[in-house]
């Protein structure tokens, strides 16, 4: 049950990945093989089994919601590809 080229393109769009025609062909074949293997899970009956989302307990504890010092603006912007007046700069979104 291989993925269609359209499915590969749909997934790439959802994941915001620009792929070349060659990549689409290659990933289609590779992902289809991986998915075939993964479908092995369908053979198990898990009707009454609860899902595990984390291990060991997954009971995240919550901290008190108190203000505390964080990173400075200078530190935050230092790694940005493009900034202007301490803001992240992107191309215009609206005309």
């Amino acid at each position, binding site marked *: 049950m291989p993925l269609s080229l359209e499915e590969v393109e749909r*997934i790439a769009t*959802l994941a915001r990945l620009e792929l070349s025609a060659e990549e689409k062909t290659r990933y289609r074949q*590779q992902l289809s093989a991986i998915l075939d293997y993964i479908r092995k899970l369908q053979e198990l009956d898990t009707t009454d*089994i609860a899902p595990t989302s*984390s291990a060991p307990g997954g009971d995240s504890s919550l901290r008190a919601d108190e203000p505390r010092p964080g990173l400075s603006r200078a530190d935050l912007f230092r*790694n940005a590809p493009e900034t202007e007046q301490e803001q992240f700069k992107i191309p215009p979104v609206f005309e």
Partner: protein
Amino acid sequence: MNLELTDLTLMQAIEALRSGEISSRELTRACLERIEKLEPSLHAFLHLAAESALAQADEADRQQVTGDGQHKPLLGIPIAVKDVLAVEGLPCTAGSKILEGFVPPFTATAVKRLQEAGAIAIGKTNTDEFAMGSSTENSAYGMTHNPWDLTRVPGGSSGGSAAAVAARMVPAALGTDTGGSVRQPAAFCGVTGLKPTYGRVSRYGLVAYGSSLDVAGALGHTAEDVALLFSIMAGRDALDATTQDVAVPTIDLVGATLAVASGRGLAPPLHGLRIGVPREYFVRGIQVEVEAGVRQAVSVLEGLGAEVHEISLPHSEYALPVYYIISPAEASANLARYDGIRYGSRIQAEAMWDIFYRTRGRKFGAEVERRIMLGTYALSAGYYDAYYGQAQKVRTLIKRDFEQAFERVDVIAAPVAPTTAFPIGAHRDDPLAMYLEDVFTLPANLAGVPGLAFPVGFDGAGLPVGMQLMGQHFHEDVLLRAAHAYQQVTDWHMRAPSL
């Protein structure tokens, strides 16, 4: 002289520094010289911090003399840090072009705790891109070579750290383990590597891959060395809500008592220790010498007083498909943050959407793109229940296998990987074959239990054979004690590659 310094284990280096026999500057410089000599053939490092390391070494030497560093168990010890753990001021690429030039303004908790204990981050080690891989061949900055045979992979994804320790470039290093990424390279390079219990070591500052699986661990020459680093890194951290408030076993860390730590903290013998050998881990396809090495090591443990039982972990064969749904699903969400806007590199475009598509499409490597797509597919409308939902339920079955096994035994002994280090390029165009390399390490991550890999022999080609011990949640000390006892009566862990 320098060779002798770099041959020291972590514990030996600590003693030599404390006694004043050597200085941190001498040790750090010896490490840097050895790195410089071997990097061209190994490529274990992505960044070196020679200057700041030497400055910290001088400060450590000063504190050693004045006594200001009395309470710091790692004072003046150089360590290497896998390039997925943030160290303030040092580049952090996670082996990816998308993070090229990124210099984090903060330090990962695991690293910070070691630094507060006196350790010096000497450099960042190579890794498969975003820790996705089993060989370091997926690093965007060139692969690492195995110190035992340069034509073979060091394992992955913490291959740089394992190779650096094996090659005596550093006495110890940090790695991370999402599906075997500390244990498998430890086995391939003949070093000792601990994957702690999930939630035992903070993930703050760890570049996220699979958040319900990721954990930072330590690699060194001996179980004692790894135990010391672990006991310092571990414990509750307010910056990672999944860390648990469970007491961390302490080896006596302070001052002169270090010398007797081996006799008190991790003392053999193993009388009464129940070891389970799971039949599902000795299947067709496993290299004969790997099986023989593990079985031989189990009988050594038996000779030290342990009882050996055959056990079953019946859902083992499903760990691989479960992992390759859950980890890509989590990765696809975690890696959505790399958008070319806030940090990392950008490919400029006329429209904002095109910045996303192009930056991600061109800066992520093939394995990362495959896993993002796999995860996106498994979480997408219409497929969620069949893939992600089913995988989470089977994860419960795998966890239960361990719970049931640990009613009968204290420790599970198994191979780390089906083979010793494989040749470079062996799985180049077959991702599924590469995934199968992790078949014995993934279950511990899915169940969240700790695993410790250590060398138990060599195969006919002279490559290290590793064994792993797995234990109950938060029982790392049981694994470390067993491995320590083994290392008292064997010397595989002290063998060094000729480089």
